[in-house]
């Protein structure tokens, strides 16, 4: 039997489906991109997979692993195209899902709307039952009533059922009884329990999460099965792994069982890729700048690991307005949206401020320079006018850009501001970069860290064109642009370990903790996680277990993540945990509060397989490497710190050998992305063909 050496990753985005193929024998990495087919994503996936394998001269049967991330789950929620789902709640609370937090997200818009609930009121039913705040069942669940209700829902064509009962995080007994009863009557009906999907206090957020899970379950399940089948028909006999939002991968069965974990898995893959590069280049603290067609996202990497959060909001009615979307409680990589993308449109608001986005020209009509009828100036138009993009090498020359159209669009915008097209273009570029930097800075500072100590790893179609300016504003000293920056997210899939995280809500003051119960909860969570890994084929050897707790000062709403030491827990562990809490609290808020007791809300446990071996081929740097061999042309590009337009060399990224050095101003082109190096900055190509740019001190 030959040893299988290739791994393939597939990331389906809104516009493109990206592929990376890694050969663990040689460390070679190849990339590929095809247009996403929203009506039949699987066929584009299969076609692209065939192409990248053919180009690499290998076959599906030679693949060791296929890892997948997709926006499908997120889109099903945004477009409300999921299942006809039902919700069962405690009697008297079926409207919790629709009431939400009753908080207006835009105080001045009298016409604002809340998001539509995923389950309409007529499909929300009630179960006679009640558990109190301490987890005591004070009213046993009436299963005969529930059975009747569920039968009626099924008769109405309901395709899946979510269950969310009050205080089920404290005691899931009634939810479990209901599940057993429903399963006995409707064995094929997909079911999601809030105590399994998000066993956390706060009935609205917990219900929203379990409803999202159940809403996308039938379609995601069908989709995953379809991909598995088609891959197997191609000759692939290995397992399909799916990226989850916390930056690990799960096997296909786990994804089908809890599809909510697939939300935002594409961006998570990007953050994970940043984590991968952080280790590769030995830069433990960095921030990712992932800028695509419509948005830019960032994630802070510390000690080589992307930072994490415990909730996310999806499908916002207004993109930048917190509270206008659906809350999902689950472990996620802490990605925040910091700004616009290449297609975002620039406009002058009623206050005379130059704004960029959030409206995007999309792919059609697209930026003015696409020549498809778009007239409003976009970020891409500005980059073209400034000379950063080539009219002839967009997507490697597969598409030509209309410079005059871009200039017209920016000229019109400039006229409104008393500027010419070039100044307007620079204005657009500045607003985009300044606002991204400001948002990233707040995110970093919010973690009480200094942005100047971070390097930036830039990717996504538009990231490398803006990264150096963002770095300058942040005061960061280095920018790393990986080769294939346009498809870096897909690579992240291959860097993800198989992992499963579970959480158990057991609110208690730290000094009153029932340590035996905590120990047994951890034991159960660990056993479950190990089972999941075992059933996904992971050998026992090398499995890592990490424990943590969500803690806060008694009464606070926001919890902080405190690591829990290894070994058996007892009252003696409390003092160490308490000290850790105060240390982290002080790091976050620069203040200590010793007057209030510490409270634990939930205990978390993560089991993960060893990280996959994703060694890239490191090439020898040669001192004689000569960047001029990669010089392909020159054009005028705009750099205010050099006095305006200057003649700027353009390099072919694929011809740059390790060790080559480039002095700014310079432009480096590859098919899916263009890197802009400012005057005063200098770049060097490292052994993995990354462009490592050191920022000069000039303004």
């Amino acid at each position, binding site marked *: 039997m030959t040893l299988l050496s290739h791994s393939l990753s597939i990331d389906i985005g809104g516009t493109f489906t990206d592929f990376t193929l890694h050969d663990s024998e040689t460390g070679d990495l190849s990339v590929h991109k095809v247009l996403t087919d929203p009506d039949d994503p699987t066929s584009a996936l299969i076609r692209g997979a065939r192409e990248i394998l053919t180009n690499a001269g290998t076959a599906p049967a030679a693949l060791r692993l296929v890892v997948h991330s997709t926006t499908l789950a997120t889109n099903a929620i945004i477009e409300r195209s999921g299942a006809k789902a039902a919700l069962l709640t405690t009697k*008297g609370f079926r*409207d*919790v899902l*629709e*009431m*939400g*937090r*009753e*908080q*207006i997200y*835009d*105080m*001045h*818009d*009298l*016409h604002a*709307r*809340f998001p539509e609930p995923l389950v*309409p*009121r*007529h499909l929300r039913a009630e179960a006679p039952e*009640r558990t*109190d*705040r301490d987890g*005591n069942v*004070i009213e046993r669940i009436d299963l005969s009533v529930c059975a009747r209700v569920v039968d009626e829902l099924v008769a109405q064509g309901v395709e899946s059922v979510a269950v969310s009962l009050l205080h089920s995080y404290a005691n899931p007994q009634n939810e479990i009884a209901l599940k057993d009863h429903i399963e006995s009557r409707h064995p094929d009906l997909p079911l999601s329990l809030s105590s399994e999907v998000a066993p956390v*206090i*706060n*009935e609205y*957020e917990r219900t929203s999460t379990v409803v999202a899970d159940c809403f996308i379950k039938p379609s995601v399940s069908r989709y995953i099965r379809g991909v598995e089948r088609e891959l197997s028909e191609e000759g692939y006999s290995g397992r399909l792994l799916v990226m989850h939002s916390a930056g690990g991968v799960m096997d296909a069965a786990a994804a089908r069982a809890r599809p909510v974990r697939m939300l935002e898995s594409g961006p998570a893959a990007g953050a994970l890729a940043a984590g991968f590069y952080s280790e590769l280049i030995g830069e433990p603290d960095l921030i990712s700048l992932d800028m695509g067609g419509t948005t830019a996202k960032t994630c802070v990497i510390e000690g080589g690991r992307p930072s994490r959060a415990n909730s996310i909001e999806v499908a916002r009615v207004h993109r930048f*307005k*917190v*509270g206008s979307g659906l809350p999902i409680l689950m472990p996620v990589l802490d990605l925040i949206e910091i700004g616009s993308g290449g297609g975002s449109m620039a406009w*002058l*608001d*009623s*206050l005379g*401020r*130059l704004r960029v986005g959030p409206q995007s020209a999309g792919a059609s009509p697209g930026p003015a320079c696409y020549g498809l009828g778009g007239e409003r100036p976009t970020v891409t138009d500005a980059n073209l006018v400034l000379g950063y993009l080539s009219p002839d090498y967009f997507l490697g020359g597969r598409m030509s850009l209309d410079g005059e159209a871009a200039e017209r669009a920016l000229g019109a915008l400039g006229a409104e*501001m008393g500027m010419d097209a070039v100044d307007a273009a620079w*204005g657009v570029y*500045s*607003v985009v970069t*300044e*606002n991204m930097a*400001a948002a990233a800075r*707040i995110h970093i500072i*919010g973690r009480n860290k200094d942005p100047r100590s971070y390097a930036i790893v830039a990717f996504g179609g538009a990231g490398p064109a803006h990264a150096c300016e963002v770095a300058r504003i942040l005061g960061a000293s280095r920018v790393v642009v990986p080769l294939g920056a346009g498809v870096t997210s897909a690579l992240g899939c291959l860097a993800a370990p198989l992992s499963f995280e579970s959480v158990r809500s057991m609110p208690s003051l730290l000094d009153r903790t029932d340590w035996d119960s905590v120990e047994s909860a951890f034991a159960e969570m660990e056993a479950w996680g190990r089972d999941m890994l075992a059933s996904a084929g992971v050998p026992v050897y090398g499995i890592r277990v990490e424990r943590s707790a969500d803690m806060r*000062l*008694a*009464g*606070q*709403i*926001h919890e902080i993540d405190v690591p829990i030491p290894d070994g058996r827990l007892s009252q003696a562990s409390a003092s160490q945990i308490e000290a850790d809490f105060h240390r982290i609290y002080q790091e*976050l808020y*620069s*203040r200590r*509060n010793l*007057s*209030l007791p510490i409270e634990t809300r939930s205990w978390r446990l993560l089991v993960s397989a060893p990280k996959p071996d994703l060694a890239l081929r490191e090439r020898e740097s040669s001192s004689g490497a000569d960047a001029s061999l990669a010089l392909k042309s020159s054009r005028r590009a705009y750099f205010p710190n050099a006095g305006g337009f200057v003649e700027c060399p353009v390099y072919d990224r694929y011809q740059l050998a390790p060790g080559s050095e480039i002095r700014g101003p310079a432009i480096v082109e590859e098919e899916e992305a263009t890197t802009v190096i400012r005057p005063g900055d200098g770049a060097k190509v490292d052994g993995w063909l990354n462009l490592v740019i050191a920022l000069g001190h000039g303004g």
Partner: protein
Amino acid sequence: MTNSQNFDPVSLEIMWSRMLNVAEEMWTTILRTAVSTIIASANDFGCEVLDAEGRSLAHAYRSMPVFNMTMPNVAKEILKKYPVESMRPGDVYMTNDPWMCAGHLPDIAIVSPVFHQGRFVGFAGNIANTSDIGGSLDAKSVTDSYEEGIFFPLCKLYDGGEPNELAFDMFRWNVRGPDMVLTDIEAQVAANHVGARRISDFLDEYRLEDLTTLSEAIRGRSESAMRKAISDLPDGEYTNHVFTDGMGDPLKIQVRIEIRGDEILVDFDGSAPQIDRGGLNCTMIYSQGHTYYPLACLLTPDVPVNEGCFEPITVTAPKGTIINCDFPVSVGSRVNTGWYIHGCIFGALSKAVPDRIQAGNGLMSSIHTYGAEADGRIFNAHLFCGGGRGATSQGDGMGLNMFPSSASNVPVEVFEVNSPSLIVSKELMEDSAGAGRHRGSPGQRLVVGKLPSYPAPLNIYLHPNRLSFAPQGIFGGRAGTKTNVIVNGESVSEDPSSMTRGSVTLSAPEDRLTLEFSSGAGAGDPRERPQDMLERDALNGLVSERAAQFVYGR
């Protein structure tokens, strides 16, 4: 670019966004470090950045609107009382003076001067509704301000970093649950620290000496936007009046709005005289805030609010009225008056801006429990419940909400964990939504009992709104519903004078307090409601068969 009086569009956008972000970061700091349900869960607070003259530049976007409007007054009073030369880093000012700050004692303003390169450049400030300020638990029973709790005249909470022990001791000995109250105040102080540091960093980064030119630019642009919006309105005089519940007898709010060119005068002459009990009186600063806010919604919804917005607006009211009350009348429940100003103004301007106004809004009500758990721990928990939002000519009412407050509800699970209560149900009411081509949002019914295992009686303090007057529809839309208070199946709110006592005691495990909160009113003739929208409401049990037939004319 930074020294010019006129910021170019690029710098203006970048720097203005930064100021908004500073306020946002202050807001997040309070959210994350406060402990009471009213602040941490219900978000009853606001954060602001102000210039060296005490003029507001930016606020966090979920800040309580009325706090945004009243905070500058506190800053200006600080400047009068404490000369700039006397200020030093580490100073923190505090007051809860209802006539200076936000209209009742629980709203505590915490304001810190900001220094840059040793020079005073502005303020970072916030106002938050503390969980307790002492005084009577029954807000309706009070006859003057002295019964409503402790009053802190403008003072220093910290002097050059040193705590004012007298102020802290006053809290320790005069409020219920002082640990909770003082931890929240710490959160407020922490937010200002964050804000002050960020403002100084910002000035460094842009090589600005102070906030003066930026402040001029921000306020100037906003003022022009407001003036332009006013100019677009037809000149004239617009009047309206509404009634509030009062203490058994309704209280009148009378408004006259005069639009001349690019300025607006709002006058409340003709409103009811101040009342001697029940805390229903509004201070002038508070009424002014609740006048500015609806005008900002109508006229400049896209402008991040700052002081420039209100330069063209003058608000007047005769002294001694419920709109402009004198010290020391009681003011604790001033929302029961002040929150009716919006509807009064929207009604008055229905002819001037018919496409923008909102039909009558069900208003938020709240309940509050206080006592000792079986193990002796003190509990003190608030539960905010939204009213249904009024429809507009553009769409149905937005669902349950706290307008004109930016607060959030408190999750049932969180409320129960924080008090020995049992919420039996919380649901939307059929046929409650004010009918219309666009309907209001339905109201909610809340049923409360005590936790069966709790041995003592449970006192619940009520702060209901809209007991006597339902929110009114516009352009043919129907009214919403009034609030009903029902104790063990019997309505106690039919006779408004019976609601002058503000608490209910649940003694037996089967005792039930039922609150049917007001819904939103409709906009336009219900018979013109599109069939598919009507059928959807019918399917969802929000409109009964009968109402579909007789009100909507199916």
